[in-house]
């Protein structure tokens, strides 16, 4: 009888706290969204499953010594995984559209406004006593507005490791929700004539320019903002490997097997942060709301910047591509293209939108560097 009792005491059912039960359900919800609704499945499947694993009572997978905790310590605490992913993203990025129209970099800059407004929002909320965010927490939450998963995770791991689970989930879910969140904002801020603006055909960008660009970007980072050097350095390295075309084998590995391997472990490690005591908190709800605000403001300021640039002269820019300034490559650019086609079935904006789109990646990495510099240093 004693042994039976002991078996019962060791069972998951006996040990489960209500919080763990809810977290397992949340993990299942993430899996459902990923599998049935196709929301960023590459990340939400590992994150959701990691979340379920982390909350198995008595198994302690996410506690010290558990395998998920190990993944976390090796890859995220050290900052390695987001950086490796960034290298892969660099190797998949084509700077051609950006180089043919460098002015679109301003759109990528403007869209970072959401990051800083949200930072202010978080600071205001904690001044009002609603939440208890430090400046570092606020900075990490704001970065969600950059709509760049690896950047968010990198900043959160440096500035606010406690909030990492919520921040990662928020930033990846919003990336998946780009096609739902952005269009209403874009429609509200533009009129029909603006949506129909046809942009000048892009000039041809020579191969040499594409090789030199990552090196220039790297030098600029090295001189001006060394705190962004880990992110942008890996990004430039990946891009150079792709463009120089003499190391195709390395570039292919970075773009495929390496980034996939790291994504698996990154997802599981983020999932390990979905433990009941950290996640089931009003703070998480606050982060989700603030992240949404960050994202919407980023979208809006990109569109407004494009309209402003049209007022200042030069070749006309379709304001719809402004929203692509919030990285989220290539989803945001596809949304711009879709709305452009709705207004005029012959107006293809995809390639034009890729410019601000990759500019957004650079912009949010720069913003991340500033946050780390200012708060950490």
């Amino acid at each position: 009888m004693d042994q039976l009792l002991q078996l019962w005491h060791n069972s998951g059912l006996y040990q489960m706290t209500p919080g763990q039960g809810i977290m397992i359900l949340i993990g299942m919800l993430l899996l459902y969204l990923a599998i049935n609704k196709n929301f960023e499945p590459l990340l939400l499947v590992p994150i959701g499953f990691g979340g379920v694993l982390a909350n198995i009572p008595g198994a302690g997978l996410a506690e010290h010594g558990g395998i998920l905790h190990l993944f976390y310590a090796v890859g995220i605490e050290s900052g390695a995984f987001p950086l490796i992913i960034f290298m892969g993203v660099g190797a998949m990025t084509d700077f051609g559209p950006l180089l043919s129209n460098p002015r679109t970099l301003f759109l990528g800059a403007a869209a970072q406004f959401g990051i800083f407004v949200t930072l202010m929002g978080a600071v205001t909320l904690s001044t009002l006593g609603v939440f208890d965010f430090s400046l570092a927490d606020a900075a990490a939450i704001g970065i969600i507005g950059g709509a760049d998963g690896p950047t968010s995770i990198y900043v959160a791991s440096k500035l606010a490791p406690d909030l990492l689970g919520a921040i990662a989930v928020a930033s990846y879910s919003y990336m998946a929700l780009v096609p739902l969140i952005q269009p209403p904002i874009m429609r509200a801020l533009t009129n029909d004539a603006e949506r129909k603006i046809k942009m000048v055909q892009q000039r041809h960008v020579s191969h040499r320019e594409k090789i030199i660009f990552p090196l220039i970007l790297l030098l600029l980072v090295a001189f001006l903002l060394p705190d962004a050097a880990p992110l942008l350095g890996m990004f430039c390295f990946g891009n150079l490997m792709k463009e120089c075309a003499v190391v195709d084998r390395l570039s292919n590995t970075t773009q495929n097997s390496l980034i996939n391997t790291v994504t698996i472990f990154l997802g599981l490690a983020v999932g390990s942060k979905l433990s009941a005591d950290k996640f089931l908190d009003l703070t998480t709800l606050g982060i989700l709301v603030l992240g949404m605000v960050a994202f919407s403001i980023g979208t809006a300021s990109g569109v407004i910047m494009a309209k402003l640039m049209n007022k200042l002269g030069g070749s006309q820019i379709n304001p719809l591509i402004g929203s692509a300034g919030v990285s989220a490559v290539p989803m945001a650019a596809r949304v711009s293209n879709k709305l452009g086609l709705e207004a005029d079935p012959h107006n293809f904006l995809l390639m034009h939108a890729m410019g601000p789109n990759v500019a957004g990646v650079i912009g949010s990495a720069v913003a991340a560097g500033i946050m780390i510099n200012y708060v950490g240093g």
Partner: protein
Amino acid sequence: MEASSLMEEGISLMLFGMGFVFVFLTLLVIVTTLMSWVVTKIEKNIGAIPEGGISSPTTFTPRQGLLKDDDENIITVLTAAVHKYRSRK
């Protein structure tokens, strides 16, 4: 941290951050435009790198005139290929 000073820190981080993002990307626009201009100038004289890139450092591209006859060339290649195919069997 005291509430009001947290607000101040937030505001200064926002202004500083947004300002810096713009300064950085403006510089990038200037430098990039300059680079494109220089590269285009240079490439007028020396020609562009082939579109697919220099695929591998060991690639050997015979220059015009190095091999006398195109037909002769093709025959050499075909013979080599047939030879290789047979030797594999």
